[in-house]
């Protein structure tokens, strides 16, 4: 059976606000899975809690809707248990970088073969519009009536310095571009982070589709090659009249799973259970 975006259809229709950036991410993800030939029973999607996580009801695959902020530990456990199944984390800026900030750093340094899509809209929209960790200074929200005072978290620089081996930024308003980027991230062997700029049409009247469109430019169009960490960090710090999208950094190195000797005999989930040589195991206690 040919896999198309339609293969992932469920009986539910999205409940996102009309015009929400999540629609673009949803379509791009299904297109990317279809393009890669990954069917509903062949991938594991792990969702956080937030508007992004509601996607679980309209994508038919193996899925986990876990706890707020805990997608990455869940994904690493699942990947170590069966590393032949592609694992994709659907997270948000609040879920992944606020509640789950510590996990993000540690997941990146282990380089598990997992793709992380960060729905980055600068707000906690499901709780009706408070500032998220990526909210820019001065941004007025329900929890920051005088504007955000803290420095924002930069998901890209954080990912690069923490050890992620594929770091990219996409835009929810560019479905073909985002489809390509997600497909590249899933294909990448290692910890792939895609920060997706996503306008929140309800709680953010500053960072709108036109606001982004007038600023975004594709990194590769200027001849940028994503192979140098320092150059990548410099590019990732660019934010203002010009905002780069595309792949900032990529390297191929051993993954979390490659470093586990137990996995050389195939996935843990398929191995014989128990202890074959009990005598040897017990001999050290004699």
């Amino acid at each position: 059976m040919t896999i198309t975006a339609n293969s992932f259809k469920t009986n539910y229709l999205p409940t996102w606000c009309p015009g929400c950036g999540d629609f673009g991410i949803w379509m791009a993800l299904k297109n990317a899975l279809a393009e890669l030939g990954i069917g509903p029973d062949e991938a594991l999607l792990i969702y956080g809690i937030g508007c992004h996580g509601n996607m679980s009801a309209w994508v038919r695959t193996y899925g986990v809707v876990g706890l707020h902020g805990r997608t990455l530990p869940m994904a690493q456990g699942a990947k170590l248990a069966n590393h032949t199944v592609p694992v994709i984390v659907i997270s948000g800026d609040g879920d992944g970088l606020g509640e789950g900030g510590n996990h993000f750093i540690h997941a990146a340094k282990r380089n598990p073969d997992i793709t992380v899509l960060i729905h980055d809209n600068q707000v906690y929209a499901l709780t009706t519009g408070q500032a998220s960790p990526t909210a820019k200074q001065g941004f007025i929200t329900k929890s920051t009536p005088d504007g955000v005072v803290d420095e924002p978290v930069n998901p890209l620089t954080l990912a690069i310095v923490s050890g992620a081996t594929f770091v990219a930024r996409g835009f929810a308003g560019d479905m073909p571009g985002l489809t390509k980027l997600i497909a590249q991230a899933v294909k990448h062997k290692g910890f792939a982070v895609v920060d997706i700029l996503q306008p929140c049409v309800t709680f953010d009247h500053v960072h709108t589709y036109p606001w982004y469109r007038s600023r975004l430019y594709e990194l590769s169009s200027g001849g940028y090659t994503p192979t140098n960490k320092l150059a990548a960090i410099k590019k990732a710090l660019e934010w203002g009249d010009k905002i780069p999208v595309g792949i900032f950094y990529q390297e191929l190195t051993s993954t979390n799973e490659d470093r586990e000797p137990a996995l050389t005999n195939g996935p843990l989930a398929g191995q014989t259970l128990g202890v074959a040589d009990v005598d040897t195991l017990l001999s050290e206690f004699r």
Partner: protein
Amino acid sequence: MAQSITWKIGGEAGFGIMASGTMLARAFSRHGYYIFTLNEYPSLIRGGHNAVTVRIATAPFYSLDRSLHILVALNKETVELHKNELREGTVIVFDPHDYEWKEEELPPGIILIPVPFRELVQKKGGEVIMRNTVALGTSIAILGAPFECLADVVRDQFARKGEAVVNHNIEIARAGYDAVGDAATALSALRLDSIEKKNDYLLINGSEAVGIGAVRAGLKFAAIYPMTPINALISFLADHAKSLGIVYKQPEDEIAGINMAIGAAISGVRSMVATSGGGFALMVEGLSLAGMIEVPLVIDMGMRVGPATGMPTWTEQGDLQFIIHAGHGEFPRIVLAPANATEAYELTVKAFHLAEEFHVPVFILTDKYLNESQWCVEAVVLERDVVINRGKVMTLGSEKSTTSFKRYDLISPDGISARSFPGMKGGQYIANSYEHDETGMVSEDSAMRTKMVDRRLKKIAAIRKVMMPPVVYGDQSSKTVIVTWGSTLGPVLAAMKANTRIIHFPWLYPFPADATKELLTGATRVIDIEQNATGQLASLIRAETGIEITEKFLKYDGRPWLPEEIIERIKV
């Protein structure tokens, strides 16, 4: 000749105190003696003091007691800190270089044996750190065992470091052995009776027993953040990861640990976490998730003194009520509480099977005293065949791939429906933290919500059918009954007199209420003995049976119960 000797060695942390205890214990356990070792560290009086107590006996016993026959002091402080454990006839082995102990400074009847540990080590070209090896030689001589008993153990201990190191250590131990000379003959009361080796016993601490149980039951994944008192389990799993084909991952915190373990379980492997109260407090949200998405998960909860950081290296049974009630919302769980290393092994094997049979979190509730003490475990128990049954799993190809799999079906009468694992054809479903329908899709429908709660709670009835009843020791008809749980059982059994009945609860939750009610009916004196300040087992018994136990012996100073303390209080 002695049937039982209690030996203690103390000194500064970092001088191989713990290893000395294990080596002496092993020297005797290999020849069929019954052994128990307890470690104490650090001292509350001054930092850095380590001590190990080893009891060696010719017959099985349940607990340490107050007798201390031999105290090996690797510094002056050891004698000062353990003065209250000395009694008439206790032998103190010490180095006069540390302090010239005089009889008049000590309680009456103490026998002083000066051995120049430091000088002997130096003469043999050793380091100061090797004084414990000299002391072991001296101890073996006093206990009347052939030197070869110790040499064997020294050989194994240092084998990895090469023959030169082995021989050097044996030579140094020999110097300690020979140093006693005629003094040993005068101490004939401390010479252990010879014994015919009847059974093959292994020397294992509680954490290792849990580890052996786990891997024999098919554990494949563990994510454990370091915390006293379960660190020996981490070492066991990490050391054997390669040879047994398992993954031990050190997570960034306990929250990550439990979520990794849940992720691994969803993907089809038997997984576990281990921690103590503070770490478990961080896992509580994850526990609730495991309950909601019905993931099999084993949690080794090693209690220590709380609240907060408490006294991290001391023992307590203060988390029973916490474990029973942990997690928001209502969902089934199982709580098992082993009393010793043998039970820790058996109940861990059981925990993995229960978790996959009922798709619930299962606790092994242990404590510092159980986890870090070394116990004699009969080899045949650990060698017994373990049959691994994975519970209900989706039959491959039974579902068309155009629909989702009913992982949470409403048809199963016991509330337990088959699991599928990512990658299985047609098995896709959502393991959903939100309330959900049969395929795991989010649902806030009132009828569905009620059905799903009922479905999850139905499992309790199924669990009750396989519940272990309390274990009764002593005089079955006695009207004096002691109720106890976990590692307190040992001291209670050691204190047991005729005409007493003891009830121990290896299975604590769901609570075996009917069996308990029956056992307590007709009792004229019921005593609750626990290692906590509020009588948490007594509270549980009252909540579940309506029986109120008013006589409670509670100890919460961080030190395990001694049988003498129980005997003194029972008399009142």
